[in-house]
C-alpha cells in the first residue's frame, strides 16, 4: 500500500511535466493543424537552456527556468514565422514533413552543440528527501510538480480569461469566421506556437535536473506528448492535463510492478490502444478547446 502511494506520488511528479508538454502540443495542433514532431526538441532546448543558465551563468533556479521558457518562446516564434507561415494553407501532410525535418535538424544541431554525453543539470535543492508520513519526496521533485501545476494554471487563465485567449479559442473553433471578426490569425498562430514551445521548454527545464540532459531526450518527450494528447483528446486542455497525469502514473506503475525496461513502452501502447478503441480521447465528447 505504501509502495503504491509512493508510485502514485512519483507518477504525479512526472505527469505534471507530461501535462505541460501535452498542453503545448494540443494547442498547436488544435489551433494550427500542425502535427508538431519537433515538439520534443523544444523540451530538449529547455533542458539545455536551464543547464547553461545554472552551470555556466550561475543564475538561480527560477531565473534558469524563465530563461528556458524565453528560449523556447523565441525559437518557437522564429520557427513559425520562417517555416510555418509560408506554408499556411498547405496540406497537413506537407507541414508534417517540414516539422519532421525541423525535428531532425534541431536534434542534430543540439548534438553538435553539446556533444553526445549526458549532462547532469545542477540544482540548488537539498538531496535528502522530505518525509510526509509514509511518503518520501525529494524537494526538487516537489518543486517540479508545484511549478508544473502553477504553469498549467497560468495557461488555463490565459486561455479562459484574457482577450488573447478568447481570440485563440475563436481561431480554434472556426478560423475563417474568427478572421472575419478581426482576429489577426497570423499573429495568433505565432503566439500559439511560441506559447506551446515555451511550455515544452519549461517541461524540459523542470525534468532535466531530475534526470539528465542529452541530445536525443526529445524523441521520447515528443512521443509522450503525443500520447498525452491522444489520451486527452485533441485540442482539449483539461484532457491534456488529465492525460499527462494518467500517463505519468501509468508509467510509474508499469515500471514498478511490470518491468522497468518497458517503462517507455507504456506511452506507445497507450497511443496504439486509444487510437484503436477511443480515437477521440478518453475524456472527450467532442473536440474543443478549454
Amino acid at each position: 500500500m505504501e509502495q503504491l502511494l509512493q508510485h502514485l506520488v512519483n507518477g504525479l511528479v512526472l505527469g505534471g511535466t507530461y501535462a505541460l508538454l501535452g498542453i503545448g502540443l494540443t494547442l498547436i495542433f488544435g489551433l494550427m493543424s500542425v502535427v508538431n514532431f519537433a515538439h520534443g526538441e523544444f523540451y530538449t532546448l529547455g533542458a539545455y537552456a536551464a543547464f547553461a543558465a545554472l552551470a555556466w551563468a550561475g543564475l538561480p533556479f527560477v531565473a534558469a527556468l524563465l530563461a528556458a521558457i524565453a528560449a523556447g518562446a523565441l525559437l518557437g516564434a522564429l520557427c513559425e514565422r520562417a517555416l510555418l507561415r509560408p506554408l499556411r494553407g498547405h496540406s497537413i501532410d506537407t507541414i508534417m514533413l517540414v516539422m519532421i525535418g525541423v525535428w531532425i535538424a534541431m536534434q542534430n544541431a543540439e548534438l553538435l552543440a553539446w556533444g553526445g554525453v549526458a549532462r547532469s543539470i545542477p540544482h540548488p535543492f537539498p538531496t535528502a528527501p522530505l518525509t510526509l508520513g509514509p511518503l518520501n519526496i525529494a524537494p526538487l521533485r516537489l518543486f517540479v510538480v508545484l511549478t508544473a501545476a502553477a504553469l498549467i494554471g497560468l495557461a488555463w487563465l490565459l486561455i479562459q480569461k484574457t482577450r488573447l485567449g478568447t481570440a485563440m479559442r475563436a481561431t480554434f473553433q472556426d478560423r475563417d469566421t474568427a478572421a472575419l471578426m478581426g482576429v489577426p490569425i497570423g499573429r495568433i498562430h505565432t503566439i500559439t506556437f511560441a506559447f506551446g514551445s515555451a511550455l515544452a521548454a519549461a517541461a524540459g527545464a523542470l525534468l532535466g535536473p531530475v534526470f539528465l540532459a542529452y541530445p536525443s531526450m526529445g524523441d521520447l518527450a515528443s512521443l509522450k506528448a503525443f500520447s498525452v494528447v491522444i489520451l486527452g483528446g485533441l485540442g482539449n486542455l483539461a484532457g491534456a492535463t488529465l492525460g499527462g497525469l494518467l500517463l505519468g502514473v501509468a508509467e510509474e506503475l508499469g515500471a514498478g510492478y511490470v518491468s522497468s525496461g518497458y517503462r517507455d513502452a507504456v506511452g506507445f501502447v497507450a497511443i496504439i490502444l486509444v487510437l484503436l478503441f477511443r480515437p477521440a480521447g478518453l475524456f472527450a465528447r467532442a473536440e474543443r478547446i478549454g
Partner: protein
Amino acid sequence: MALGAVAAVTAPLWVANPYHLHVLIMAGIFTILALSLNLLLGYTGQLSLGHAAFFGIGAYTSALLALRLEWSFWLALPAAALASGLAGWAIGRLALKLRGAYFVLVTISFAGVISLVSINWMDLTNGPLGLPGVPPPALGPWTLRTKNAYWYLVLAGAALTYLVCHRLVTSRIGRALVALRENEPLAESVGIDGTRYLVLAAVVSAALAGLAGSLYAHYTRFVSPEVFLFSYTVTMVIMVIAGGQGTLAGPVVGALLFTVLPEALREAVAWQWQMLAYGVVLVLFVFFLPRGIVPTLAAWRRR
C-alpha cells in the same frame, strides 16, 4: 535506364575498391527500402515513420532462423518477408482506419515497442549485445562470402522489388491506390474499398522492407537493436521525398544519391552534420522541389 542496368550488372568490373562496392551494396539494400516505403508514402499518401521496424523484424527473423534453427538463407529470406508482411498486415488493419497523422503515430509507436522488445527480451534477441555470426548465404557448393557475389544477390533483390512495385502500381490495384490518395470519397463511391487496398499496400511494403532486412542481416552478419534506429527511417523518407514520391525511378535515384553522397563526404564532415543536413534537406525539398528530383527533371525535359 538500360545504361543504369548495364552499369549495375558490370559494377564489380569497374568498382575495384571493396569499400566502394560495400557502399553500392548498401545502396542496393536502401533501394529496396526506399521502394517499399514509396509504395505507402508515394502511392497511398500514408507515411510510415516506423518503417525501420519492418526492416528490423526481417533482419531478426532471418538471423534467428539461421542461427537457432539452422535454416538455409533461401528459406529464411522468404520467412523474413512473411514475418514483416504479417506485422504490416496487423498494423495496417489496426491503423489504416485512422490514416494521416494517426497512422504516423501508430507506426512510430509500433517501432518504439518493437525496439524495446529487442533490447529487453534477452533470451530471444540477446538484448543490446545483438546476434553475431549470422551465416552468409550458401548457393550449392559456394558460399556468397565475397562482396562481388553479394552485390549480385542484392541487385537481384532490388530488381525483384522494382518488378513487384511496377507490377502492383500499373495494375488495377495501383490505380485504386492513386484514386484513394487523390480523392477518397470519390474512389469509395465507385466501389473501391479504401481500407482493404491500403492494408494490401502496407503488407507488400512491409514484406519488401523485411526482405531488405534479411539481405542486410546476412551481409553484415550481425543484427542488433540498432536496426530499429530512427535514423534508418529518416534516411528512407529523405530518399523517397528527394527522389520523387509516387514514381518508381524516384526512390532508386534517391537511394543511390543518399548512400553514395554521404560516403563521398564522409572524410570532410562528421556524421552529425550529415543528419543535420538531412533535416535541412527535407525542409528545402518541401519548400522548393516538392515533387522531387525525378518528376522535376522529367517535366523539365518535356518542355
